[in-house]
């Protein structure tokens, strides 16, 4: 088949998909292809640099890039507009640019971004329904539906009686793709070789009143002629130094906490089964309703999914799903076709923290998804 014909054919189908999104009330937008690189690097991490096309203006040193996705450009435009903070929904269809070893660097993505909607459970469910429509539009009726909810893990960790250093570590590890459950055994805090240089000082400080200890560390640094350089204040350094002294060298995660996290991460199934298991876990661990808010939202969302006509038995929920997506804060979902490559065809979720990180003074709810047009183009179309 002629490549041009294929491309035009898929464009026409993608245009039809966009028209349906516009009819559903999402305003079509088309942000500039050339974007400042900073927000992408800041939000996705340095690792994304390997896949981005970065350039600088002649004589300038600000970095620009060819947009590697459309979520950040659409969000920035919304923030800069007079609608910022008000409920608004947008749809897009356009090229994105990512360096890929085995595929073209320029490819089409479509998607939806919904901002400022207070009815989060309903908005989440609508995104999944619209994502399923995209797959069906291309002729894939029975896409695999994988969902997760990263707010559940965040609530669990927040509720645990653990030092701050442990919570930071666990949340960060959850956000990575490697298997946290397997890592739990090996997780230790503090240098593995102990801290012989400071062992005496740390022992002396342990248990002393924080204010006095803080002053002592501050004095130690100034006696040594060390001025805090490199952006961290003396207070910050002293605080973490004391935190380490409280923990002792090479602390392991307490056994019962590890057991609880492992049990939590093993929960999967359809949303109803999972919710029941999560309620049992919460009761067993005497968590006094720490998970309640996240669980209520989870169950309410499941209700809206059913109301959208989605058979909940088809929905695969896992507590561990959603790891590796740094800026998501709640619902996450992915549609795949295991009979083919298993690569995501539609992927999205809730990122209530994104607009704050892009500079909004007030938090703004945000949820959306993107559609991999090139991956869906292989299907025959709606029957």
């Amino acid at each position: 088949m002629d490549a041009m014909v294929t491309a035009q054919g898929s464009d026409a189908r993608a245009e039809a998909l966009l028209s349906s999104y516009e009819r559903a009330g999402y305003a079509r937008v088309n942000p500039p292809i050339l974007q400042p690189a900073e927000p992408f690097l800041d939000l996705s991490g340095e690792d994304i640099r390997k896949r981005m096309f970065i350039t600088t203006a002649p004589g300038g040193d600000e970095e620009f890039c060819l947009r590697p996705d459309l979520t950040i450009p659409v969000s920035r435009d919304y923030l800069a507009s007079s609608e910022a903070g008000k409920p608004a929904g947008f749809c897009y269809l356009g090229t994105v640019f990512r360096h890929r070893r085995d595929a073209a660097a320029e490819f089409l993505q479509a998607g939806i971004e919904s901002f400022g909607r207070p009815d989060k459970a309903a908005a989440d469910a609508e995104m999944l329904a619209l994502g399923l429509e995209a797959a069906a539009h291309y002729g894939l009726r029975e896409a695999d539906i994988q969902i997760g909810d990263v707010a559940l893990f965040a609530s669990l960790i927040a509720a645990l009686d653990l030092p701050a250093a442990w919570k930071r570590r666990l949340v960060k590890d959850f956000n990575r793709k490697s298997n946290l459950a397997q890592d739990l055994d090996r997780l230790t805090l503090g240098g593995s070789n102990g801290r012989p240089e400071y062992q005496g000082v740390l022992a002396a400080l342990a248990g002393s009143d924080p204010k006095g200890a803080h002053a002592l560390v501050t004095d130690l640094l100034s006696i040594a002629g060390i001025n805090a350089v490199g952006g961290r204040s003396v207070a910050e350094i002293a605080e973490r130094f004391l935190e380490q002294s409280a923990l002792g060298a090479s602390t392991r995660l307490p056994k019962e906490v590890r057991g609880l996290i492992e049990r939590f991460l093993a929960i999967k199934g359809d949303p109803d089964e999972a919710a029941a298991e999560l309620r049992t876990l919460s009761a067993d661990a005497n968590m006094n309703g720490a998970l309640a808010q996240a669980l209520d939202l989870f169950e309410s969302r499941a209700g809206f999914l059913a109301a959208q006509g989605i058979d909940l038995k088809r929905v695969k929920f896992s507590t561990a799903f959603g790891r590796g997506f740094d800026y998501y804060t709640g619902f996450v979902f992915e549609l795949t076709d295991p009979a083919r490559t298993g690569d995501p065809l539609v992927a999205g979720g809730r990122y209530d923290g994104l607009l704050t990180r892009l500079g909004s003074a007030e938090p703004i709810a945000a949820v959306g998804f993107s559609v991999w047009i090139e991956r869906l183009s292989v299907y025959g179309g709606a029957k």
Partner: protein
Amino acid sequence: MSAPLVLAVPAKGRLQENAEAFFARSGLQLIKPRGARDYRGAVAGLDGIEVAYLSASEITTQLAQGAVHFGVTGEDLIREQIPDADARVVLIEGLGFGFANVVVAVPQAWIDVRTMADIDDVATAFRHHHDRKMRVATKYINLTRDFFARQGVVDYRIVESSGATEGAPAAGTAEMIVDITTTGTTLAANALKIVDDGIILRSQANLVAARTAPWTPEQRETARVILDRITAQQRARSFREVRARFAACDARLVATARERFSVETPFGGPTSSGMLTLHCPPTQVYALTSFLRDNGAEAVAVADLDYVFSKENPLFSKLAAAL
């Protein structure tokens, strides 16, 4: 005449002196027939080689492109500048100069930081505290990114720095750095310390071959000759020749010497008249001579070696295997 093999060597400074001295020791004297300012040279008495004088960074680029056959450059530049370096070049041999480590360094004031695990934790805490990511100043963008990824550190940003990187934390343009250091003196002078497990790469000057250069049979043969001489010189440098003659010398005694002093017997065991030639590592020479005298040798002669040529040429085998 067919196209020559191109050997790229650094065009100035200590690296050039050291590279020239290295080749001279192997009997490969680099000359500039058209005068000292010329950027093209040759090897005295050896046809088919052109010497290109370039900057270390340019040598690395040309190796990656296959524009030169051999080059002398630092492993740090190879790993930083060439994506998937092992697919494009072969590090034939470390040359024993240009030693430097690429390290992660933080302000000495960070008394709570000793390891990369600490950096990981501090980076995450920093982001929560300051609402921005910790900045790492470096010119080694790729080495830093790969090392930090392997260590699981994610909450950081790279600030590209082309000079005086060690001053960045004090100047407030970064929180920490990744830089090259030989003695650590410059880091200490800038109130920085190296993170215990933060040594990204122990680098030195290397003889590097370009996989993608056009390797004609003539160029391969020239490469074989060059590597043969380098091997012979290296082998000579790692041994002293020890000679003795005494009646009690037999195969068993040689076997003991081999085991205890790591000697080699390039010409086999003792001759019928008891004449023995051994190659011995320099550190073992005195102990070996004592051993031989204790076993009946009247006199033992020890001499430096200039070259030891042998049938095997491991450096060329390495190149041949990669092409």
